[in-house]
């Protein structure tokens, strides 16, 4: 969790509001959520990249482990499957589908073009001991074998893990004497890992630089980000 007021104050300080202009709370909230989603999405590409290099058995220094830790904040296990529709018991958004499980066994994902042949081959034909599923739409999943009696079992026996989207971050405020004053009661902090403070600041600054038509600000933010990435990935 990253305190949004901390980030806002840093951004304002770095943007040097007297010389470069003022970043309004509305603009900040827009930039904040874009930066949060960019960072979140980047995790998956970073994992792919860091898997190419040897890992590290250090307790806190293995990059892939650290990335997984950051992603784990958004992992949920309360997925439900009902008649082909997947949903979350707690109402969370399903950003990425993880592992589907039936009766303690993984339901493996296959592609629509494969299921025809998988079903026709005796050795690969799905069974209750080895079920498979196909994505049919945003929240629709067909599980095989799909006899009526099997589907009745899935309705009560299938669960799945998934990643939910980070909650919308908002710097809450009330207007007093035409000035926006911080209001903690209407504020939502960033859900990202605490180590992302610097990254969030840099990304928001870069976006703000575009709005303020301050190319220098964007360049400085980009350089800071580049330096951070270089340090991480060398």
């Amino acid at each position, binding site marked *: 969790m990253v305190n949004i007021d901390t980030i806002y104050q840093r951004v304002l300080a770095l943007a040097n509001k007297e010389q470069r202009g003022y970043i309004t709370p509305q603009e900040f909230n827009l930039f904040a959520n874009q930066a949060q989603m960019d960072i979140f999405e980047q995790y998956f590409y970073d994992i792919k990249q860091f898997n190419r290099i040897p890992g590290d058995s250090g307790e806190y220094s293995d990059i892939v482990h650290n990335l997984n830790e950051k992603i784990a904040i958004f992992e949920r296990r309360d997925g439900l499957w009902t008649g082909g529709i997947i949903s979350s018991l707690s109402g969370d958004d399903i950003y990425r589908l993880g592992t589907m499980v039936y009766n303690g066994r993984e339901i*493996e994902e296959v592609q629509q073009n494969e299921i025809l042949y998988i079903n026709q081959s005796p050795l*690969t034909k799905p069974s209750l001991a080895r079920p498979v599923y196909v994505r049919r739409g945003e929240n629709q999943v067909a599980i095989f074998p799909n006899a009526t009696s099997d589907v009745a079992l899935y309705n009560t026996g299938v669960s799945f893990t998934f990643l939910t989207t980070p909650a919308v971050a908002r710097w809450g405020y009330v207007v007093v004497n035409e000035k926006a004053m911080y209001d903690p009661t209407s504020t939502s902090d960033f859900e990202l890992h605490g180590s992302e403070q610097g990254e969030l600041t840099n990304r928001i600054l870069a976006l703000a630089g575009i709005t303020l038509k301050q190319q220098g600000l964007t360049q400085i933010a980009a350089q800071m980000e580049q330096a951070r990435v270089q340090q991480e990935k060398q």
Partner: protein
Amino acid sequence: MGLLDNTTQQAYYQGNDFGNYQFVSLQDIINQFIVAYVGEDKIIPKARRTDVAFHAQRALAELSFDTFKSCKAQEITVPASLKMTLPQDYVNYTKISWVDSAGIKHLLYPTSKTSNPKIIPFSTNENYSYEVVAELTSGSPNIQITGSELWIEHGTKVSGPIIDNFSSNCIITGSSIVGNDTIFIIQDGGGATFIPTATASDQLTFSSTDGSIYTEYLNGAQVTNTGPWTVGDNVIPVASTSDLNGIEVGMFVNEGPLNWTPDTRVVAINGTDILVDKTAIVSNPTSTATVKFISKPEKVDESSITWSNYKSSTPSENQDDYQDDTYWPMDGSRFGLDPQHAQANGSFYIDCHSGKIHFSSNISGKTVILDYISDSLGTDGEMQVHKFAEEAMYKWIAHAILAGRANVPEYQVNRFKKERFAAIRTAKLRLSNLKIEELTQILRGKSKQIKH
């Protein structure tokens, strides 16, 4: 951590799954393989469970053929038909033997000098067609084949010089045996009955509706006093058991395609009820109807003349005058004796077409044991691997996945090929069950001069 931690001794000895600790289920093999071999920083970065399961089943099948021990066996008493149906999960036999009163097996040997070929009609005109000469009577729909008791399947297509003038699409819709003659009637595709306008002989050619060459049937039955039944019934009642004369389970109702669903087969005879596997198309309110049945050997159990002759002859194993201790009639003249026939146990051959084992006639009534191998994929319960071969399974799967994947360095594939070979060899050696004391006992006979 221990593998037995979830099963107490008491639960084991009071259960019925004895000796199962020596096996690992295929499901466990697949799960353990995915855990140990698949993932980041492992030899196989990614593999779908479906692929692993496929290769695991292939490994199980291949190892079942030549590495695992064969435990499957069936025992039957050979009936008068001298045939035995192959088991449901049969892949090949390891040994076929008959058992004497002491429970000792006597090995039967395969014979290659006979077979059970498919019967193909061959006319006197050297055509592959079934042809008969029939008598047509002016004004009568009954067409007669004199002096020939033929059981003709209804629905059979008929053509001939005279009949073709009536319609080129004629089928037989009714027939009966009267004395030694066969009488039948013909209809065209529209249901009109053929009635000859002149008395004459016609050379008729029969052909099956499915395009195959018509086969002559020599056995059938005409059951009188049958009925009543309604549409959808699968029981043909008869007035008394005496009306069941000639009918056998396996015969087909020869009333199609108009009255009964074609290929309706008798599945049982229960008192005065004939139970069939398909249903009536037309109702019969009376109890005096005649229903014809026909025996179609090629749909049940092909019996060729070759097999009939082999079955009815005295096999070479039995050609003995029992006057002395020798089995062969040409005692002292055994030069050129073929060793494959120099045995008295008996012979068999497997008819792949019908899926049955055919025995020589000296095996009739004897208890026969079929030891065979399967691919171990028949049921979930038998999908298990002996622990001696567990490592061979992992290596087999790993090699199969790597070998079938693009951009895998060839040295990695070769490494796993060698490891698989070594693991299979180790498993085979272990499963050969060689024990030093048992070998010693066998070798103690090496100093004897005469051995068999």
